[in-house]
């Protein structure tokens, strides 16, 4: 087993363990931190896959953005230190069953299906290439999705503002 592989397995273990703790911990802060670890682990995985740009984005958006947002909202809504309520018993059982069975099923599917590499070339996931493709209209150009997602982000922003902004009580 090469070092690379060892790194992968350690990363994998870390991701899964952190993820599991994130969904299992009764303390909401710990939960958020475990999530942070897990997401960072995934960024590590991307590094391991030599997808540096993605890894960077992962860290910037998730770690720098989403997790912060989450923590922020925890502050807004939660009295810290209190345990989270335990899951409803019956649902917990069914959830374990569903997730377990689902996992078995999916894993079975994936295992059975022999993936055959079709392309021979090597992947060029450099920032430059990604940037060029992102704004290209020609073959493999992603300018349209890029524009679309800009509208999406705009809309999401407006949505957030409308909903979350504290409106002053109208002339009462």
């Amino acid at each position: 087993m090469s070092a690379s592989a060892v790194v992968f397995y350690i990363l994998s273990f870390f991701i899964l363990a952190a993820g599991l703790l994130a969904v299992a911990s009764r303390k909401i802060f710990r939960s958020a931190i475990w999530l942070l670890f897990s997401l960072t682990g995934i960024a590590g995985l991307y590094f391991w896959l030599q997808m540096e740009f993605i890894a960077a984005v992962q860290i910037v958006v998730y770690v720098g953005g989403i997790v912060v947002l989450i923590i922020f909202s925890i502050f807004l809504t939660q009295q810290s230190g209190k345990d989270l309520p335990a899951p409803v018993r019956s649902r917990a059982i069914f959830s374990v069953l569903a997730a377990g069975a689902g996992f078995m099923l999916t894993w079975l599917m994936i295992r059975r299906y022999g993936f055959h590499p079709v392309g021979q070339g090597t992947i060029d996931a450099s920032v430059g290439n990604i940037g060029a493709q992102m704004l290209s209209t020609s073959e493999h150009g992603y300018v349209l999705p890029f524009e679309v997602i800009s509208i999406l982000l705009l809309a999401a922003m407006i949505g957030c503002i409308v909903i979350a902004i504290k409106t002053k009580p109208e002339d009462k």
Partner: protein
Amino acid sequence: MPNDAYIALIPLLPLAAFVVLGLFGRKSLLRLSGIIGTGAVLISTGLSLWTAYRYFAACLSDGACRLITPLKVTWLTFSPGLSIDLSVILDPISVMMIVVVSFVSLMVHVFSLGYMKGETRFGTYYAFLGLFTFSMLGLVLSGNIFEIYIFWELVGCSSFLLIGYYFDRPSAVAAAKKAFIVTRFADLGFLVGILILSFHAETLDFHTLIQRLTGPSPQLASITRASFLGISLLSWGLVLVFIGGAGKSALFPLHIWLPDAMEGPTPVSALIHAATMVVAGVYLVARLYPVYMFADPAVLRVVLYVGAFSALFAAIVACVQTDIKRVLAYSTMSQIGYMMFALGTFQAAGEENTLGYTASMFHLFTHAFFKALLFLCAGVIIHRVHSNEMKDMGGLRKLLPLTHGCFLIACLAIAGIPPFSGFFSKEEILLAAFHANKFVFAVGLFTSGLTAFYMFRLYFSVFWRRQSQDVGSHHGEAPLTMKIPLVILAAGAIFAGFVPFSRWVTYDGAPGKGQGIGGFAIAPVMLALLGMLLAGFFYQKESARPAKAAAALGGLYKFAYHKFYIDEVYSFITKKIIFNFIGRPAAWIDRNIVDGFMNLLAGVTARISARIKGFQSGRVQDYALYFFAGVAALAVLFIYIYT
């Protein structure tokens, strides 16, 4: 006889009267309605007599009476060959019948001018009378078996309307309903009989039907080959037709409507329930007589026994009734029984005997006169006394001399005392019976004695018994319009017997031999006299004798008085059995089971709907769980199971 289409006018004139009076008789023509109705029937009667004259004259000149169809209009075609034609046929019995019907109807019309005077629904009354006269004339002139059924129903309906004329009397309504329903029940037999006969004969025309079912023909072969319960369909058909006739003619056990029908105005009883409609059954059998003769003798034996039994049964009941009209009603039933068993005498003894046919028709003819007379007399009496009960009467001979005389004539006629008309016809019937079946002959003989007894019981009770009586404030016996019909009918009752009937009216149209009665008449006449004497003994003066006799007879008397409880049996069957065990369950099943099932379906749907509401728990995590379960189920189902 060419150019006989005018015969259609005979029934149509009363119909026109019905239409006019039905539309306008309630208000504008109220006063005139009697005149209009009577006028129409008068013309019809004239035409009938003229027709009869011409027809029988032709018979004489031809040597035999022929069947003439002056008019035939297709009314409704079912399939090739099977069509209801509105046709008019002339043969001896139909000609005889139009005379009887129109004549009696005329008498009743005239009589009613006085009798019904002042009624608020005078116009309606005449309208209904017109409808009845039309239907009855149509019935007797029918040349098509379905046509006869049509008029058969129509006379039933007009009978219903006239019985229920006093519609605000519950008893009248009940009687009308009863008459209609009982005859309807019998008509069912008639209808099925028609279906059977016409299907196999492939025609509805009487003439063709008779030809096909009496001679060698494929139709006859088919109907005799087909059988049900081991009896050929021909026999079934004939028996069923006979049941129809028996219902209309009030033969046992379908007679129960007739006494109640006396709820109608008395002239109506005279017309419908004595002289004309009730003999329709006899007429029907007579019309199909060749087929009856040709078919299994057992069929005519049924006719014979039913007729004889009805005659005897009704006579016995008549002896103990106290309502004057009911006595007459039972007497009618008894006389019709006579006519019917006369028809049944053919072949009953294994040899041909066609005298019965003529005798029956003859009796029908004479009976019409004296029975109508009796009823009209009863009408005068009731008009005067305002009661139907014999106990309210007595000693009326002074008060109503003309009526007394007419009534006596009629009683003598019905009792069969020579030379009154009833004598001739009755002797002929007894003669036919004597040749055919000794047992039935004995029954007939005994019944004729009973007839004399109960008629004179009535006669004495009404006109003698007490000294005299002062009833009502009227002066005079009755208006002229009521008297004239009495006199005319009385003449008929006396002289009708002298009509040379058997020369004209025979089953095959050929002139009959006219058998002499001679010494054979002694026994019946003696018996009749004995009955009269007995009646005189009991009822001529007020005495305790009747009561004693009744006490002596005990149960039998009570039994007869209650008409042998036939009504009760019927009411038990209808009210208790049919209503409770068929009608009520049917209605209940419909509401609770059939409809209940539909409601149950709705209920089950609602129940399921309520049961599954838990899926929509309102918890978003449940939703996600179900979502994933759905995906997993689909995956497992369609990847592993259905591939």
